[in-house]
C-alpha cells in the first residue's frame, strides 16, 4: 500500500540552512532512507545524504529523525502515525558539511588517542589462548558499527562544543573498557588515562548513549559504569589500593 507522507528535510551547509517541506510517496515496508532516496531521485537531485549498506551494519546513514538520533535505514516509515510530519536533520553534535551529511572526523581523532592493546612480550603472535568467559564481555562491545549516534546524543559534547578537547565520548569508553577487560592487555594506567585524559569523569550516567544504540549495546551499564568503578579502585579507594600493594591482587594496573 502506498501513502503520501510529508517530510521536512534540513537543507543547507555550514553558513546557513533551513527545513524544507516536501511531499513524497512511501510504500509499505519502506524505511526513511528509502523515501529520502525517492526525494533525491524526484524532487531534490542535489540532496546530500551519506549511506552505504542499507542494512543497519555500516553506520553511515546516521541522522536525526523527529529530533532523535537514528539510522535512517532502520527507521520504518510505518512507525510514524499517518499524517504526522517527519522532520529529518543532520546530526546536531557535529559540524555540518551539506544537507544531511556531517563531518564526523572528531571521532577518528579520538580513536587515535586511545592507547592500543599491549600484548605480552613473552607470548608469540598466535600463541594466545583465551576462554570464552574471558572474552564474552568484550564481544558485546565489538558489535559497535561506529554510527556515532551515541556520540551525537551525548550532551557532554552535543551541548558543549568546548568539551570536545577533553572528552572521548561513549563510543570510545566502550573501546577503553574492552581493552581494560582484556585478559592479556598489559598497558599500565589505562584506568587513570580514561579518567584524566579521555574525560570519563565528565559522563554523568544519563544513559542516552544506551538509548540510541542501534546494536543495543548496554554502553552505560556494561562499559562506562564498570570503568568508573575501576577508576574508583585506583584513584578513590585507599583500602583497595593498599590491598593490591600488599597482596598483588590482579586487575589493578
Amino acid at each position: 500500500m502506498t501513502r503520501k507522507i510529508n517530510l521536512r528535510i534540513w537543507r543547507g551547509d555550514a553558513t546557513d540552512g533551513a527545513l524544507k517541506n516536501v511531499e513524497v510517496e512511501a510504500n509499505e515496508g519502506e524505511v526513511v532512507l528509502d523515501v529520502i532516496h525517492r526525494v533525491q531521485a524526484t524532487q531534490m537531485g542535489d540532496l546530500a545524504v551519506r549511506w552505504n549498506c542499507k542494512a543497519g551494519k555500516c553506520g553511515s546513514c546516521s541522522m536525526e529523525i523527529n529530533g532523535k538520533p537514528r539510522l535512517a535505514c532502520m527507521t520504518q516509515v510505518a512507525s510514524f502515525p499517518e499524517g504526522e510530519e517527519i522532520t529529518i536533520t543532520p546530526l546536531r553534535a557535529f559540524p555540518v558539511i551539506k544537507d544531511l551529511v556531517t563531518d564526523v572526523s572528531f571521532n577518528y581523532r579520538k580513536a587515535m588517542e586511545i592507547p592500543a592493546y599491549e600484548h605480552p612480550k613473552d607470548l608469540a603472535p598466535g600463541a594466545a589462548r583465551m576462554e570464552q568467559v574471558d572474552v564474552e564481555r568484550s564481544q558485546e562491545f565489538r558489535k559497535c558499527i561506529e554510527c556515532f549516534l551515541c556520540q551525537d546524543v551525548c550532551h557532554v559534547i552535543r551541548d558543549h562544543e568546548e568539551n570536545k578537547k577533553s572528552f572521548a565520548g561513549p563510543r570510545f569508553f566502550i573501546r577503553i573498557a574492552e581493552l581494560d577487560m582484556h585478559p592479556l592487555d598489559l598497558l599500565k594506567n589505562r584506568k587513570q588515562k580514561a579518567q584524566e585524559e579521555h574525560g570519563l569523569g565528565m559522563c554523568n550516567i544519563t544513559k542516552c548513549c544506551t538509548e540510541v544504540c542501534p546494536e543495543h549495546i548496554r554502553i552505560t551499564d556494561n562499559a562506562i559504569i564498570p570503568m568508573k568503578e575501576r577508576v574508583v579502585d585506583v584513584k578513590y579507594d585507599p583500602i583497595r589500593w593498599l590491598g593490591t600493594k600488599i597482596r598483588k591482587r590482579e586487575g589493578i594496573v
Partner: protein
Amino acid sequence: MATGVFSASRAKIKERTLRTDRWWVQPAITFGVLFSFIIYATLRAFENANYFAEPLISPFYSPCLSTECVPGSSLMGQPFNFTLFGSAISPALFILIFPLGFRMTCYYYRKAYYRAFWFSPPACAVAEPHEKYTGETRAPLILQNAHRWFFYAGLVFNVILTYDAILAFRNQEKQWGHVSVGTLVLLFSSFMLWMYSLSCHTCRHTIGGRLKHFSKHPIRYRLWTRISILNHSHQQFAWVSLFAVAFADIYVRQVSSGAWTNFYLF
C-alpha cells in the same frame, strides 16, 4: 558565544529539540516523586516521634542509638547523646545520612535526578540550559565516587533492618511466632532493600566485575552473572525499595500514633 547545538559549525536549527514525543513526562514524574519523598523524609526525620510501636520500628529510626530514643526501641544500646543547646536532635538525622548517601550516589538515581532536577540533560537530544559543564570531575560531584562506601554502609543497614523485620515476628508481649501486617511490611521493605543493594553496579563490580580473568575465578564469575541479571532491574528495585521503605515508615508512624491498628494474622 553560542555553543552546543547552536555552535557556528553545526546545522542552523533554532529549536532546542525537534522531538515530537512527550519527552518531558518522565523527568516530570521523577521530579514529582523524588521531591515528594525528600519533603516527606525531611519532615519525618525532624518529627522525632511515632517511630516505635512494639515490635515495629520505623526504618528511618533504626538503629536508634541515642539516649533520647523511646524505651524499647534501642536494640543496640544508647551510646550517643544527641542534643544541641539542651534540645534532643532526632536520631533519624544521623541515620538517614547513610541510606540517602547510598541513593544520592547510586548510578541509577544519578541519571534520574541529573535529568529531572538539573536538566543535564532534561531528556536525550534535548539541549540542556547550562552554559558550562564539567560533569563529575570536580567538587562537589566528584564525591559521587564515594558510592562504594555508602554501599558498604548500606549493607550494614540492611542487616539491621532485616533483624528488625525478624523481631517483628513477635507480638506486643514479645512472644515469638506471630505475624502481623507490620511484620509483612517490614519484611517486604528489608527484602527490597537487599534486592536494591545486590543489584547495585558497585556490588556487581565488587563481586567480580573488576576481574580480568573470569576463568581463574569461576565462583566469582558465577556470582557476577547472577548479580548481572539482578542489575538489569536495578532501576525497578530502586523505585520499589524507595516506596517500600517510605510505606514502612508511614505504617509504623500510623500504628505508633494510634491512627491504625496493627492487625495480627496469627
